[in-house]
């Protein structure tokens, strides 16, 4: 049971493959033995992630994990969501150092909790658990988890969100989706950001969309620019639609 919130979720997220040991009767080993153990290496994280999700569910909060390289515009997206006032939300921020992102979000009147990961290149479900107890969940419709800027490591860790949005910006160049397929395969929505810069870069947006759909044919893809009001509205509509599908 969770000490902090009293949630009684325990052994969920177990696949049929887990927890079966070949030697049930006599665990005493006299000789060399091969033992079938078959457990997820990140089983503890997966368990905690399931717990986080149940916690969000209990408060009817949609949790969205934002992932991208550093500087793709995760915090800028959140600032625009705040300015729109379209839905209530809080933010759990992950960065190696500083509280700069949380301060940017709080400056917009949005509750934000900063996790400093030190040298860790990703958020895990345990870190997010700490953050979610700092969120006024009863007052929120959506909780964003702004992951550490990194297109590799965060993909391996379920943090307990319901949906993943992966951002990639025009100046990063049009080969990122092919180069980081594991990350983009995790996306429910890919946001191609900073599209106001398209006139200045050799960036083939149709090629990027095709690459993304080669990996995941049914992935949603939107273009986004902080200077294009319609593109902001499109993201809001996507989030509101997903929220309405879970209420």
């Amino acid at each position, binding site marked *: 049971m969770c000490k902090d919130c009293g949630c009684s979720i325990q052994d969920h997220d177990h696949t049929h493959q887990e927890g079966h040991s070949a030697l049930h009767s006599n665990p005493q080993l006299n000789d060399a033995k091969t033992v079938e153990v078959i457990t997820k*290496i990140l089983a503890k994280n997966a368990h905690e992630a399931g717990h986080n999700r149940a916690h969000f569910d209990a408060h009817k909060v949609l949790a969205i994990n934002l992932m991208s390289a550093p500087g793709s515009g995760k915090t800028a997206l959140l600032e625009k969501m705040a300015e729109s006032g379209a839905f209530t939300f809080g933010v759990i921020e992950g960065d190696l150092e500083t509280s700069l992102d949380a301060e940017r979000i709080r400056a917009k009147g949005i509750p934000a909790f900063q996790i400093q990961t030190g040298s860790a290149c990703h958020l895990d479900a345990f870190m997010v658990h700490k953050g979610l107890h700092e969120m006024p969940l009863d007052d929120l419709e959506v909780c964003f988890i702004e992951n550490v800027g990194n297109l590799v490591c965060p993909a391996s860790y379920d943090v307990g969100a319901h949906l993943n949005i992966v951002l990639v910006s025009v100046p990063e160049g049009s080969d990122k989706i092919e180069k980081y397929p594991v990350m983009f395969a995790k996306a429910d929505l890919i946001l191609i950001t900073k599209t106001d810069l398209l006139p200045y870069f050799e960036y083939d947006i149709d090629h990027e969309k095709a690459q993304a759909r080669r990996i995941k044919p049914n992935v949603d893809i939107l273009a986004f620019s902080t200077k294009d009001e319609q593109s902001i509205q499109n993201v809001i509509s996507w989030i509101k639609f997903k929220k309405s599908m879970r209420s």
Partner: protein
Amino acid sequence: MHEYSIVQALLEQCESHAQEYKATRITRVILKIGKLSGVEPYLLQSAFDAFKEGGICREALLQMELQNLVLHCEACGEDSEQSEICYQCKQCQSTQVRAVDGEEMFLMRLEME
């Protein structure tokens, strides 16, 4: 470089299995690494070698089996193994699929004494 955190979780599991079976040392650790687990086997190997010192796995060999993505199609009911990263049923081209293997890392077997 999240391979270090993964190895720490792995070594904890090895210690607790060794305790359960009253083993004094683990000689081989066999993993299944999904191609979409986001882990680089070479880096996992070097992290394992660095962290195993002084623990139950100090003399253990790490053996990794790479697992392709396997999809179950909700439309036609078939399971298909994907040689490339593509979330679409090979039999009927439906995208109503869910991954049943190849996205996770599993500790499969331990040899111990």
